């Protein structure tokens, strides 16, 4: 950046800051910001404007590091990204206005504009990168967490395992169900597996198809599959769709499924 502009900004730091603070009140006052206490908001505004102006004198790496520290803290408390982008746009407006009102520049307006634009864009890019980086890693962690939860096989009795399914079944999950079922049957030496669909909101042809395939595969490894947790409305839609689930036993509740699983393995529950 040309030294004269840097000097110009430094000389007017005070008045630019005041103008920006007014401007930011006007543009960045949405719902998310309103929930933040006033004193923190004012303090953050101050810190932010100081940081912007300070980056002028810092070396590129130092500037990056300082922005990073500042932003990480704010991401952590859930500060909206729009505040920063709007704040920087407001800052650019304030500076360009100030430069326009002061005619003592040698550079052409386009040169000045280009310099300012470059400077502000650099900061915006870094902010957006920091934010999207955090979002992506959060998303990744949640995906992993969801995957771990998606198709557990629980050995409840000797030779009997249960797979409770909750939520939507998509292709990726269907694959996991199949893998976990077969691996679990071998690992736990299950003779009977109960697939519980109480928590599955919609059973359409694809879901049914995956369940049929899974139970067929279970049969091939020498175990038996019982489908349990069929709610009345699901039963009716399955009939309407014309899906044939007669190849394996089905039960309305997990409890009844366990009872028939016991029968299949020549045991029963007795009360003493």
């Amino acid at each position, binding site marked *: 950046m040309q030294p004269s502009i840097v000097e110009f900004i430094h000389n007017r730091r005070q008045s630019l800051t005041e103008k920006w603070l007014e401007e930011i009140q006007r543009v960045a006052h949405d719902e998310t910001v309103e929930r933040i206490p006033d004193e923190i908001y004012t303090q953050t505004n101050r810190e932010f404007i100081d940081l912007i102006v300070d980056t002028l004198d810092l070396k590129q790496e130092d500037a990056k590091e300082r922005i990073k520290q500042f932003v990480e803290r704010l991401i952590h408390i859930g500060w909206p990204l729009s505040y920063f982008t709007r704040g920087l746009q407001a800052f650019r407006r304030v500076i360009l206005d100030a430069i326009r009102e002061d005619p003592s520049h040698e550079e052409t307006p386009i040169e000045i504009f280009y310099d300012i634009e470059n400077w502000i864009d650099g900061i915006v890019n870094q902010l957006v990168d920091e934010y999207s980086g955090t979002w992506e890693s959060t998303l990744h962690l949640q995906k992993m967490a969801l995957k771990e939860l998606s198709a557990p096989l629980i050995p409840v009795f000797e030779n009997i395992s249960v797979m409770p399914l909750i939520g*939507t079944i*998509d*292709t990726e999950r269907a694959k996991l169900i199949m893998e976990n079922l077969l691996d679990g049957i071998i690992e736990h030496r299950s003779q009977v597996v109960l697939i519980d669909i109480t928590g599955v*909101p*919609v*059973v*359409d*042809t*694809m879901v*049914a*198809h995956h369940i*049929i395939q899974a139970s067929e595969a279970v049969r091939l490894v020498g175990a038996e599959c019982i489908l349990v947790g069929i709610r*009345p*409305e*699901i039963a*009716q*839609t399955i009939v*309407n*769709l*014309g*899906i044939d689930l007669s190849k394996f036993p089905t039960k309305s509740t997990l409890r009844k499924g366990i009872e028939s699983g016991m029968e299949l393995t020549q045991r029963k529950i007795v009360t003493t």
Partner: protein
Amino acid sequence: MSIQSCVEVHTEWGIVSARQAGRNLAKDVGFGNVDQARITTAISELARNIYLYADKGEICIEAIQELDKHGAKKGIKVTARDKGPGIKNVREVMSDGFTTSGGLGAGLPGVKRLMDEFDIDSVSGEGTVITTIKWLR
């Protein structure tokens, strides 16, 4: 009353949100549990067909009202629209057990049985529009 809400379908998540929108509207219109499940399942089938065969398209859901000799009847209308390859032989896809994707082949005939009215309009190479209605009884 006839505010149409459309959901774009180009990922499996689109299927889920179309379904969700359908379930909410069905609940608002006053459908019972079983019909809610029927409508949601039908939407799920239609949305999945879009995702599988046409890559992308949209599902539009609206509450409708019609006057007949018994008074006004309310219902829900689901329109599935895509610009996919279209269906060459409509009679074939409407028969049970016909599938090109290795599925069960119960999708479209199933939707017809789940809903009250069913209309399919497809031009090979241009796309498909399926309109179905479920009336509140």
